[in-house]
């Protein structure tokens, strides 16, 4: 077909699709779609009985984005920052906005430090790789033409990296001391 004004013909008409597919066209009218338009000003819809919520007690200095005017009235209390990773996280929140790559790169670095710190606390953690034996690890991959099978080999490297880096650092320290 040449490039013309017409919309290419569809393989099935609307009537055929309505007959074949349960519910076809049930939301054809945008008015029936709950997020059309995406913004609808209706402050009463949520059922909230406050204009500004009561404030949750702050039990330790809660890190927050410097793009916020104040600590939000409600926040999560999982895993307060601790150790070196906590110090990096606090610095990242205190110094850099969300718009700065440094903010996210420091937080990612803190995650790696946190992971290393946790390795110092036994015991070993399962990786779920036993399921390779119980849930057809080979059969799920071989002959399947999967795009992800190649880089699965990198996963153990990601898991082992903190061990390797830690061992390298320890070796360097010991070598420096014994010289």
């Amino acid at each position, binding site marked *: *077909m040449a*490039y013309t004004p017409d919309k290419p013909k569809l393989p099935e008409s*609307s009537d055929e*699709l309505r007959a074949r597919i*349960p*519910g*076809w*066209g*049930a*939301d*054809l009218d945008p008015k*029936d*779609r*709950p*997020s059309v338009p995406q*913004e609808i*000003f209706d402050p009463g*819809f*949520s*059922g909230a009985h406050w204009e500004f*919520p*009561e404030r949750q007690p702050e039990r330790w200095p809660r*890190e927050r*984005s410097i*793009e916020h005017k104040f*600590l*939000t*009235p*409600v*926040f*999560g*209390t*999982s*895993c307060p920052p601790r150790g070196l990773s906590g110090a990096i*996280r606090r610095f990242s929140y205190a110094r850099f906005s*969300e718009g700065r*790559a440094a903010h*996210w790169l420091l*937080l990612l670095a*803190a995650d*790696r430090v946190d*992971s290393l*710190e*946790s*390795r110092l606390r036994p015991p070993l*953690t*399962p*990786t*779920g*790789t*036993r399921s*390779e034996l119980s*849930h*057809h*690890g080979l059969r799920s991959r071989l002959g399947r*033409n999967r795009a*992800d099978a190649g*880089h699965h080999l990198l996963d153990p490297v*990601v*898991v082992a990296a903190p061990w390797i880096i830690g061992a390298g650092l320890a070796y360097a320290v010991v070598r420096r001391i014994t010289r």
Partner: protein
Amino acid sequence: MRAMVYRGPYRIRIEEKDRPVVEHPNDAIVRVTRAAICGSDLHLYHGMMPDTRVGMTFGHEFVGVVDEVGPSVQRLKPGDRVMVPFNIFCGTCFFCARGLYSNCHNVNPNATAVGGIYGYSHTSGGYDGGQAEFVRVPFADVGPSLIPDWLDEDDAVLLTDALATGYFGAQLGGIVEGDVVVVFGAGPVGLYAARSAWLMGAGRVIVIDHLDYRLEKARSFAYAETYNFTEYDDIVVHMKKITDHLGADVAIDAVGAEADGNLLQHVTAAKLKLQGGSPVALNWAIDSVRKGGTVSVMGAYGPMFSAVKFGDAVNKGLTLRMNQCPVKRQWPRLFEHVRNGYLKPSEIVTHRIPLEHIAEGYHIFSAKLDGCIKPLIVV
């Protein structure tokens, strides 16, 4: 209580943790009965999301029974069976007042660009999630809903994110009757988005993935035409060929941060964490959609930059639409669709895994073993 706990990339285990307590007058404590692992949980599991702390409990798809309520809670009482949207939201801030519940400004001190999400790193507010026996649910009068008597618990847990997100993704596509819709990704959200596109009057729905068993599900569950991108030298060219070289009217990215199809993109994003996400599916969506078309992004990406082909989007005059789904807004209409039999959420569930074996569950889902599409966690 027993809870899934993150110990570092690819490493999780079940630990005994303190039962959560009421920390705000409008909190509820919910005893979880059913949870799910979401594809976006894998980004945390793989260490991609900044500020994912060792010790955190993941899980933003869960249902359960109210165990305790704070003093200001009026709409729930202990013993109520509830489904909880993955968004934590106050209901009254500037954004909530406009229905943007996923963008609430009062629940996430760690970031202004993200709302609050259960068990989704400190970047999403630092809340523990529902892959545990108990979970703290803030703003209990606003977020949770009672599970209707007629709604199966497995269907209910899928309404807390995956189904609502897929349905929302189709809405953002602005589909009109007869539109050609291409969905990248045949995971749970992609399958639901493809199925929802028909409800909005699509004339043709195409699903792209590299896993044959998921494409088979796309054909049987979502009535979609499917293509395995590994069988084509260039999936974008193929998309043009099958749309008279115009492109689809609407493209939906239902893959997100760990997209395959370009090893460099995948490794720099998912393994080396140098990008917020691997934008392979997003770039294919941009290149596959017609000029003037719409790209709806439902895939989750991290807050860092990603190598997106923005120039193509500009030159083609595309409309790019995206957001985390404001789940609760979707429920009244989705209840009707489930009740009418138009959507059958639990048809895509492939695995039911006890909480004790959640480490295996994550590995099976992550490595796509055993035909896994959607694993539920039985608590």
